[in-house]
């Protein structure tokens, strides 16, 4: 399997990276949209509701040398969010949850990135329904399947985080649907230009 075969490397970390990477400075990456997925999961009584949200835009600057130069900005299309059954998708996009008619975009902009043993912790500002709250994503970085050990032009980033939806005013169906929305993001990125 790709992930087992993949070499986990530190995002923005120092020391564990191949020599080629540490000498590089800021690299810009573009999201490979078709190969990436923003998934979520939440509790529905004893069951779960799962779904996805398409990414409209993603700007990634990763500097494997200087932590402060790393920057991540992602925009999701709330109006095209999906769910595991039709009424849940309508409820999700509707005025009681994402309110996609008035707030079609969900945005995340990083403010600080800290290395960990397996990847990085990305602090940032998450905006849902026009409400901005601090938010943390845990990232694990992999090589993409079929790339060389020291090849940092194509990366696979797994990100997880928990959104407490009521903090953003997304309070609909609170008696039936959980407040915690667990994000599970697979982002495949390719280096662009400089």
């Amino acid at each position, binding site marked *: 399997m790709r992930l087992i075969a993949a070499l986990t490397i530190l995002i923005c970390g120092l020391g564990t990276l191949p020599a080629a990477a540490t000498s590089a400075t800021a690299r810009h990456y573009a999201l490979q949209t078709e190969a990436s997925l923003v998934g979520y999961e939440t509790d*529905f009584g004893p*069951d779960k509701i799962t779904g996805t949200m398409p990414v409209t835009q993603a700007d990634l600057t990763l500097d494997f040398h200087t932590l402060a130069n790393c920057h991540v900005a992602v925009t999701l299309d709330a109006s095209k969010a999906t769910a595991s059954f039709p*009424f849940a998708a*309508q*409820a999700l*996009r*509707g*005025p*009681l949850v994402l309110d996609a008619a008035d707030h079609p975009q969900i945005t995340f902009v990083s403010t600080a990135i800290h290395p960990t043993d397996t990847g990085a912790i990305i602090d940032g500002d998450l905006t849902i329904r026009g409400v901005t709250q601090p938010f943390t994503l845990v990232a694990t970085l992999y090589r993409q399947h079929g790339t060389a050990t020291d090849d940092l032009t194509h990366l696979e980033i797994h990100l997880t985080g928990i959104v407490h939806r009521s903090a953003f005013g997304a309070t609909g169906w609170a008696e*039936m649907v959980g407040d915690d929305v667990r994000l599970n993001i697979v982002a495949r990125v390719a280096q662009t230009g400089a």
Partner: protein
Amino acid sequence: MRLANRPDGFGPVTRLLHWGMAAGILGMLAFGLTLVRMRMSLATVWLFGLHKSIGITLLALALLRLLWHRVSPPPGPLGGVPAAQLALARWTHRALYLLMLAVPLSGWAGSAATGIDVVVFNTLTLPPIVPPSEAGAKALLTLHHWLTWALMGLLALHVAGALKRSVLARDGTLSRMVLGRR
């Protein structure tokens, strides 16, 4: 068989509508009260669709009933009671009609405001009668809640009145709604 109402009795169409809708509405009140207290899951969420489908059916039957009573007016009340009591019965019937329309309409409007389609028996998708809005959904579903309580109060009065005349006075009021004659 004569379907229409007669000056001295209820015809079969009116009686069928009365008892069919009575069963439907009483069942829906119990259903609604249970529904909002249930722990929902993937296995039970379809019950909301059933509640909405039966509710819309009852709305259609209420309109049909009003139309039918234009075509074939129901008989006036049996006499022998004070005028104030007859007026109370008349106004109770009017208020019941109002609620037979307002209860399902508030449910439909409240559902539309949540952004979720009202689909009748998994086939007919009704148009949203109000635009989606959080404030609208909350207000209209609260209205739906209070209108159902008003309906329960009026029904208690209506049934008490019917039983008073049939059990205490034994004047044939109930039997002419059940059997069509006294």
